[in-house]
């Protein structure tokens, strides 16, 4: 069970990636992209999702994606025109697949009619009456599949012997259409391995791949030698293949493919003409004699969602399985490329009785009764497709913990390195120039190492961005506004932890842009703008930070309304003088919402301040800039990583503390008149007409008052919720990147302290948590009534 559960997790992880891919391909389609490769890619994504779903028995997902895939298949073959309507349906189908995957992951059963309308529409396109039955199409589909599969093998098989002129021609056409124009010959290669072939470590899949590398291949499997399951020797080779190859490479190249296996097989290579030569293999042998008995061992693997099966869809299945029939299929899942025609043939034939709708490969056949030419078609296109596909994936999955350990270790190295550097003085450089030179190099290498390690954790923001088009679609459906989402910079990379926490704020901001920013189509047209609004979501790296912007071409922030609302809600004073920018940014205050009507999209007044909080938690900042009538632009800046913090180091007493630089607004030497005690204890600082709460670190930390209080500085820091707090410190020491360490690992949490770090001299510095400090301060102020004395003294000193 555990193993299965593990496979499931892997499957869902892959689904995430696949759904992201699918979304981007569908987006491209929607934008009028007509490349057949886009359709191929979308097909592959949905196909892989379906394959895994079958293995785990997610029937709803399987039946839906099956129909979906059928439509995509028809589209990529040009049988269904990518009309606007059709693309619209396909895009919605993509959303439903995502929902079904989510439901499967959460172990929920979606409502019986969920997605039924889209399924009907898909089925209508596909012309599949069976699937049109609606939500519980699973069973129907199964029946359909079986029906179609029963029919398909025969044309495909006959193909091999050229008996079916029509089909062969269709194939050729396809070949010609897609294959490179080089002058080419045709060969028929009959390859019958000796039973012992596998014991010599030969792998037929490799031959197939190499042949494919030479040109378009049509593959037919000959399973006539397959014995009953009981007699089957799993290590013996039973299946032979007939390849029809169209290549410009010449006979010698073909022979070279089989060079090493020549002693372990019967091989014939004959040149054939356009229509194929008269038969050299017996057509009947193709499989008819053994409709069910030999079938068992083969379809077993692809057709049944048995627990061992998760592997092939999981793409981890290396083709080393001793079962021959599986090998030709494996490349599919492995490379997520098109299926070689051998597959439908080999498997479809013998299994009419037991095929379920789930098999990974069965789908290539069911689409149409004309399945014969189709595989050929596919292979031809495949051959035409860039060879890049074959290069394979060069990524590995690594446990995040391992990477974190590495990151920590490098963090230590950086600190140690800094420590050594601090020790080297000019004298040292004179006496041991080479040592100092070495230290310099060490410094550079350490930095390089740190950057590389951080880059491992980095991921493209695409994984979050790709969820947004759907959101915009839904929003425009709900609001009746026409909104287009344009994205750029999706490949910008950012720390994985940041990415994970980016989804919510981004969703809120896009909602806000669609709901509040973009106007209704008639309003837009009246204003001389295109009826369709545009939201531009972009990401880019600027220095050590990532900047994500959400720009809309809507009405912009209605400043009068915002101001009025803020006054009404007591968020600002009625006579407060605010710049335009300050007014715009009022929307980030808690409890602020200007939507006249509370909709379920936005307007609950929690959106934007939550956005701000979330982003601040990530060490980032968010602002809005707006131009009335032209739109607004929300700018979010985020640190590249959470493991490292840009800190300002301050001194209080003998100890150094670190403040997150991102939250610091300004620092100043206060004038005594600006500091005023307030009723109930506490102090405020008046700054440009606003009052800022003052928190003394010394007092919060029960330290003695300083000897020279008039030298104390105030650092104004923004805390969660948009409030500003002035921290009283002794000195600002400097600015430094620090590696964040856990204090709680060995000690109980201390309110006001967010963590610790190690400075260049090896000493520990505590990282301040300003929101926590403020809470501590409030308790203290509430607990003591004579607190004003401190303020008085401050003022005396300042005087």
């Amino acid at each position, binding site marked *: 069970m555990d193993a299965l559960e593990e496979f499931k997790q892997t499957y869902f992880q892959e689904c995430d990636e696949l759904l992201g891919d699918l979304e981007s391909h569908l987006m491209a389609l929607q934008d009028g992209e007509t490349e057949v490769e886009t359709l191929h890619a979308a097909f592959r994504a949905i196909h892989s999702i379906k394959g895994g779903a079958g293995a785990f028995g997610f029937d709803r997902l399987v039946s839906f994606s099956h129909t979906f895939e059928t439509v995509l298949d028809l589209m990529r073959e040009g049988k269904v025109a990518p009309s606007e309507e059709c693309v619209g349906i396909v895009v919605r189908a993509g959303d439903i697949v995502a929902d079904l995957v989510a439901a499967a992951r959460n172990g929920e059963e979606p409502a019986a009619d969920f997605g039924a309308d889209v399924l009907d529409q898909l089925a209508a396109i596909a012309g599949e009456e069976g699937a049109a039955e609606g939500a519980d199409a699973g069973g129907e589909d199964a029946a359909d599949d079986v029906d179609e599969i029963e029919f398909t093998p025969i044309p495909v098989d006959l193909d091999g012997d050229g008996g079916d002129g029509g089909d062969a021609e269709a194939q050729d056409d396809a070949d010609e259409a897609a294959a490179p124009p080089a002058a080419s010959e045709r060969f028929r290669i009959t390859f019958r391995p000796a039973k012992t072939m596998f014991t010599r470590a030969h792998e037929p899949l490799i031959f197939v791949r190499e042949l494919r590398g030479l040109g378009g291949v049509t593959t037919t499997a000959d399973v006539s030698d397959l014995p009953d399951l009981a007699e089957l020797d799993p290590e013996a080779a039973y299946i032979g293949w007939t390849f029809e190859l169209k290549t410009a490479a010449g006979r010698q190249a073909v022979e070279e493919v089989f060079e090493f296996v020549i002693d372990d097989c019967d091989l014939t290579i004959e040149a054939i003409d356009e229509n194929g030569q008269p038969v050299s293999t017996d057509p009947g042998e193709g499989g008819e004699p053994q409709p069910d008995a030999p079938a068992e061992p083969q379809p077993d693997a692809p057709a049944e969602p048995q627990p061992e099966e998760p592997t092939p869809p999981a793409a981890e299945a290396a083709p080393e399985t001793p079962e021959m029939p599986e090998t030709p299929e494996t490349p599919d899942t492995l490379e997520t490329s098109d299926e070689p025609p051998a597959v439908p043939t080999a498997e479809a034939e013998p299994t009419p009785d037991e095929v379920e709708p789930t098999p990974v490969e069965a789908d290539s056949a069911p689409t149409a009764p004309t399945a014969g030419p189709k595989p050929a078609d596919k292979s031809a296109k495949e051959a035409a497709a860039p060879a890049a596909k074959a290069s394979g994936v060069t990524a590995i999955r690594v446990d995040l913990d391992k990477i974190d350990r590495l990151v*920590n270790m490098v*963090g*230590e190295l950086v*600190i140690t390195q800094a420590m050594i550097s601090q020790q080297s003085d000019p004298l040292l450089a004179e006496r041991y120039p080479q040592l100092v030179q070495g230290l310099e190099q060490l410094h550079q290498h350490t930095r390089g190492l740190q950057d590389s390690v951080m880059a491992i954790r980095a991921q493209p923001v695409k994984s979050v961005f790709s969820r947004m088009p759907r959101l915009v679609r839904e929003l425009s459906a709900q609001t009746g506004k026409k909104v287009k989402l344009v994205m750029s910079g999706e490949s910008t990379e950012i720390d994985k932890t940041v990415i994970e926490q980016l989804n919510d704020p981004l969703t809120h901001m896009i909602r806000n842009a669609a709901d509040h920013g973009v106007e209704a189509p008639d309003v837009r047209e009246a204003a001389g703008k295109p009826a369709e609004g545009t939201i531009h979501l972009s990401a880019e790296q600027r220095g050590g930070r990532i900047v994500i912007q959400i720009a809309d071409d809507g009405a912009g922030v209605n400043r009068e309304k915002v101001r009025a609302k803020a006054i009404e809600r007591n968020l600002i004073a009625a006579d407060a003088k605010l710049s335009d920018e300050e007014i715009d940014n009022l929307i980030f205050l808690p409890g602020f919402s200007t939507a006249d009507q509370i909709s379920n999209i936005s307007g609950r007044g929690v959106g934007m301040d939550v956005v701000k909080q979330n982003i601040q938690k990530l060490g980032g900042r968010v602002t809005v800039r707006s131009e009335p009538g032209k739109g607004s632009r929300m700018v979010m800046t985020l640190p590249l990583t959470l493991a490292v913090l840009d800190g300002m180091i301050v001194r209080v*007493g*003998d*100890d*150094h503390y670190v403040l997150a630089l991102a939250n610091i607004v300004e620092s100043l030497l206060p004038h005594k008149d600006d500091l005023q005690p307030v009723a109930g204890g506490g102090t405020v600082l008046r700054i440009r007409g606003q009052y800022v709460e003052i928190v003394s670190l010394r007092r*919060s*930390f*029960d*330290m003695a008052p300083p000897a020279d209080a008039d030298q104390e500085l105030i650092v104004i820091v923004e805390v969660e919720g948009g409030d500003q707090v002035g921290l009283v410190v002794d000195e600002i020491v400097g600015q430094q990147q620090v590696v964040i*360490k*856990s*204090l709680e*690992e*060995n*000690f*109980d949490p*201390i*309110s*006001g*302290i967010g963590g*610790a770090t*190690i400075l260049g001299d*090896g*000493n*520990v*510095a*505590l990282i301040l948590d300003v929101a926590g400090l403020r809470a*501590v301060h409030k308790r203290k102020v509430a607990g003591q009534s004579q607190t004003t004395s401190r303020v008085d003294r401050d003022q005396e000193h300042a005087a």
Partner: protein
Amino acid sequence: MMDDTPTVETNLDSGQGQNREIEHVVGSTVQLIAFTVGEQYYCIDIMAVREIRAWSGTTTLPKTAEFVRGVINLRGTIVPIIDLRARFGQGQTDANKSNVVIILSVGERLYGLLADTVSDILTVPEKDIHPVPETDGAAENPFIEGLITKDSQMVAMIALEQVVDEAVVH
């Protein structure tokens, strides 16, 4: 005497938790690190000790008890230091380089104990660890879990869990 012979051998390759388990079963000896705080000798089970360092200053942790001297950087890990003298209610240690910090692992966490000097490693038969008399009026009482006599000197065995728990007061 015969009893001791096998355990002496075992002690040679101490550091193996398993060995110690076995020793316990056969009711033999434990190894203890003995150190001083002021005039008094204390000891702790050697198995809890990770390393012994010279005092090198700490970063103060605000709003903690007097006996929490702050934290140090132990090769990248932040480790809190407990001043035993302060813990026993005798005021903070005026620490300098001759003081020692004994790094311990207690439960899942690491702590450092600030003491004056490390004096000895004792190998003591378990039966020689005496319970603390209930009426003992010593101030450090809650932090002592046993008494040993070594060369006519009393060595108090420290109850680690109690010492590092801020909630426990003497």
